[in-house]
């Protein structure tokens, strides 16, 4: 036997078996990690890459798009602006199946260019329309004119039956607008006196809404959500009650034929006489007083005025406004107080596409394209839709979330790096070892262990609700207000209206009384001439989110900064000090430059960490839906604009993924976009990691000892 000659011969015994089994178990566990990693990456790349491939760069450069799935009928000569046609093609890769006869043509549109002069009176809605047509145009008005005449349109002759009260108001305000023949008639109507027995009844939302303003005392077991109009909830009537209601209300809330109405114990008709004044108002444009317009509004007058607040007085000359001719006509007819000059007509040729839809098809359109195609074919009626379904965020586009995440990371890293580097320098170079440093390190360890959702809530409490602001218009809901100096300049009327500022008179109210009065008035902000230090928070904003993330990433930053400071040889400090440098000089010139690669790595690692966090930003910065990038749509100027920018909310990539994947209704249209967004997110985070490695190698090669 060979084994007799071989003293080290292999032996089969239980120890060997144990060894083999142990090795097998270890291998299985190790390989399962690899499998899991492959599974996750593989799935995301497999599902996400086709989406990115199909969408191309537009996936990165577009804001999140909502697609409308439209069923259209076969039709010829459908028109669409050329730029929207591109979007249509991009969203419908299978367009060649139903698209034919694509021809380009130019559609002339007449535009009027004009100057708006000081002292013009213009209705609020018309001003808004002008501003949306001319993006650079923004008037900070300071005055309204409640007496300026206003115009309105009636599409056709209208027979108006006006109740007595309205007619009286009309006569008082603008009798000239009334035609000569006004007939008066009396009509017998009924009110209803109803008795409801105590009890527990199912009630629908319409009945509930109708009953809220009445004297009926009732209590809902469950409140209605806005998006559930058909829901029936239980209500409690605590005692038997009798109220008198109008016929409308009677049929909404008590009609036994309807679902979700209250059963009545007893009812009684209460007849009364209503006086009506009938007259005919001719179609076309009319000019009248604001008070009269407020009356006509109820009888179908078309206008964009705000008769209660009055017309806006333009306080500066504005040149070069450009509007389509159709709007120009409405504008001039509806605003008799408008003063314009230098009108000129230009004809813009917009490139259009005309195409045929060869068969009934399903077309995906984003909201903007849908609107354009509808307007373009409004007159011809060639674009016939049979059904429409909206699928939120099914069109892809992640520029908003990417920008939001980028801004959050930038703010967070600025705060975290300044604080973190300062703290680590102090701890490592200045502080004497002792209880104090130990306490700080303990606090830091604790901070590193706090769950991220707690950071989110902390950020909500501290930065969103409580952080200090210095402002002349503190929030009415401010936690604490401390007056600083009395030199606020009164906000313009437009600001007062838009931001709902309560302007206090000369009364000597305390800050808490001011808050109460302002809240009672329904205002959000307070102005009384003082500059306040107000603990009112920064709102849901990228600033609050950035600070919250900074709090979270601080322990990581401080620990790794300290490590890189410690890695700098003591000899550099000594050499520098021995040459007569002060402590700070030697840190600045002989320590920090050489700790820089480590700090850089720490910060990039911090970036990858904060970029992926969801919990801390969901209360503090991120919103599920925002059509504008944070810097868009800000009307203030200069430094105020920067502050407004910092206080604006944003979308963020991880939160966007959460929204797309979990918070909106799922469909086959939205699902690919989840994978697309996740793939983009992963690419970004991985590229950060790659950058960090590259930077580290590069900088480390440059600086070494």
């Amino acid at each position, binding site marked *: 036997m060979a084994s007799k000659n071989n003293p080290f011969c292999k032996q089969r015994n239980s120890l060997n078996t144990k060894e083999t089994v142990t090795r097998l178990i270890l291998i299985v566990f190790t390989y399962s990690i690899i499998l899991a990693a492959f599974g996750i990456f593989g799935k995301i790349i497999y599902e996400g890459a086709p989406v990115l491939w199909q969408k191309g760069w537009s996936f990165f450069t577009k804001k999140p798009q909502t697609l409308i799935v439209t069923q259209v009928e076969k039709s010829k000569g459908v028109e669409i602006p050329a730029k929207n046609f591109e979007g249509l093609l991009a969203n419908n890769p299978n367009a060649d199946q139903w698209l034919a006869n694509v021809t380009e043509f130019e559609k002339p549109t007449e535009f009027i260019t004009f100057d708006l002069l000081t002292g013009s009176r213009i209705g609020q809605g018309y001003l808004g329309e002008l501003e949306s047509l001319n993006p650079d145009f923004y008037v900070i008005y300071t005055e309204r004119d409640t007496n300026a005449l206003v115009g309105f349109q009636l599409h056709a002759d209208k027979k108006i039956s006006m109740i007595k009260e309205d007619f009286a108001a009309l006569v008082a305000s603008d009798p000239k607008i009334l035609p000569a023949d006004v007939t008066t008639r009396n009509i017998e109507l009924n009110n209803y006196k109803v008795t409801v027995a105590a009890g527990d009844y199912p009630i629908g939302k319409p009945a509930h809404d109708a009953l809220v303003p009445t004297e009926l005392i009732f209590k809902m077991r469950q409140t209605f959500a806005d998006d559930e109009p058909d829901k029936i909830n239980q209500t409690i009537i605590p005692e038997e009650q009798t109220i008198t209601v109008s016929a409308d209300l009677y049929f909404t809330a008590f009609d036994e034929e309807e679902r979700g109405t209250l059963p009545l114990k007893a009812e009684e008709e209460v007849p009364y006489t209503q006086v009506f004044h009938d007259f005919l108002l001719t179609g076309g444009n009319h000019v009248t007083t604001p008070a009269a317009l407020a009356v006509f509004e109820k009888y179908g007058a078309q206008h964009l005025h705000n008769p209660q607040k009055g017309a806006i007085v333009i306080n500066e000359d504005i040149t070069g406004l450009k509007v389509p001719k159709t709007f120009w006509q409405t504008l001039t007819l509806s605003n008799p107080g408008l003063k314009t000059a230098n009108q000129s007509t230009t004809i813009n040729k917009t490139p259009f596409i005309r195409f045929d839809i060869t068969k009934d098809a399903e077309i995906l359109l984003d909201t903007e394209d849908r609107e354009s195609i509808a307007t373009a074919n409004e007159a011809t009626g060639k674009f016939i839709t049979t059904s429409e379904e909206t699928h939120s965020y099914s069109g892809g586009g992640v520029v908003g979330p990417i920008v939001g995440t980028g801004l959050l990371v930038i703010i967070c890293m600025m705060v975290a790096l300044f604080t973190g580097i300062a703290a680590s320098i102090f701890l490592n170079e200045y502080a*004497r*070892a002792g209880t104090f440093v130990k306490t700080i390190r303990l606090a830091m360890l604790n901070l590193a262990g706090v769950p991220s959702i707690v950071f989110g809530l902390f950020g909500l409490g501290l930065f969103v609700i409580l952080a200090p602001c210095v402002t002349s218009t503190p929030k009415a809901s401010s936690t604490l207000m401390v007056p600083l100096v009395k030199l606020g300049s009164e906000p313009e009327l437009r600001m007062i209206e838009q931001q709902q500022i309560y302007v206090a008179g000369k009364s000597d109210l305390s800050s808490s009384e001011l808050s109460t009065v302002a809240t009672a008035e329904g205002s959000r902000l307070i102005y009384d001439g003082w500059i306040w230090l107000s603990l009112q928070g920064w709102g849901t904003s990228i600033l609050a989110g950035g600070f919250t993330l900074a709090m979270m990433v601080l322990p990581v930053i401080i620990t790794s900064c300290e490590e890189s400071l410690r890695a700098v*040889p003591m*000899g*550099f*400090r*000594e*050499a*520098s*000090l*021995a*040459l*007569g*440098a*002060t402590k700070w*000089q*030697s840190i600045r*010139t*002989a320590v920090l430059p*050489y700790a820089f690669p480590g700090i850089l790595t720490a910060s990039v690692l911090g970036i990858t960490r904060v970029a992926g966090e969801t919990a801390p930003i969901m209360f503090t910065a991120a919103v599920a839906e925002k059509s504008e990038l944070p810097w868009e749509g800000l009307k203030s100027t200069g430094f105020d604009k920067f502050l407004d920018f910092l206080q604006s909310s944003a979308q963020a990539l991880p939160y966007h993924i959460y929204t797309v994947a979990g918070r909106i209704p799922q469909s086959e249209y939205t699902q690919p976009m989840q994978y697309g967004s996740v793939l983009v997110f992963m690419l970004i985070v991985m590229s950060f990691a790659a950058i960090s490695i590259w930077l580290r190698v590069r900088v480390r090669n440059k*600086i*070494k*000892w």
Partner: protein
Amino acid sequence: MNQQNSATNDPTAALSGQAVTTAPTEAPDAPMRQDPAHTEHPHAETITEDALGGKTMIHIEDLSFSYDNGKTNTLQNISLDIPEKQVTAFIGPSGCGKSTLIRCLNRMNDLVETSCITNGKIKIMGQDINARDVSPIELRKQVGMVFQKYNPFPKSIYDNVAYGLRIQGIKKKSSLDEAVERSLHGAALWDEVKDRLKDSALGLSGGQQQRLCIARTIAVQPKVILMDEPCSALDPIATAKVEELMLELRKEFTIVIVTHSMQQASRISDRTAFFYLGELIEYGSTTHIFTNPTAKQTEDYISGRFG
């Protein structure tokens, strides 16, 4: 460190006869505590000073120093005067306190939080350097230091030499250029590096790097240069160059050097101080110490019987 602490705990053991023949770590265990050498305390050795001439630059008076807030003294009652424009060497076995003393001279020991001077004073140019109104920054501008391990900054050769001037706020290119050239000449390095001033200092050889550190130190024009075992990390050829340089520098600067090499001390120094376990055993002219030492430990040490 252990040896040092245990030794300083029992200073009387320091001079025991046992220590002469055995390793210093065993000194505390020495049974003979009454040694005649102890009674002839060698502070008196400074009498040769006048004979060698030279103005006193550094005056150390009865200095005791502790690294642990005065619990144990690392230096015990040191008194010596270091003359101007001469090379003074501190010799002694490891842990005897010579590096500690040299670091006291430009207050580098301030970096150790628990260190303190428990007794005595140091006067440089007549000024007590631990007085309240003395700024260690200003002191270090006058008392430069070269370290055991050469430690040029990972910058260019030029930037290394200009470093001290730049932190003093000198920005003018011409005066920096001039100072760099002068210092590199002074450190006998100019000819070797004049064509690559912008190259990294770390590309130089060990000896060149140490001379660069010396150039960096003399660039700020100190009065005193402290050298803490400047050649211990260098090969003999580099050492020879640095030694040559020191002999050159002593024309302008007062040099205090800590060295482990007795040959080096004998070659370059004008005066030698021998330390043992935190005490100054003997101080005098180098020739005197090496040819005719008064204390027995000195003789044993320089003849290589211990240490």
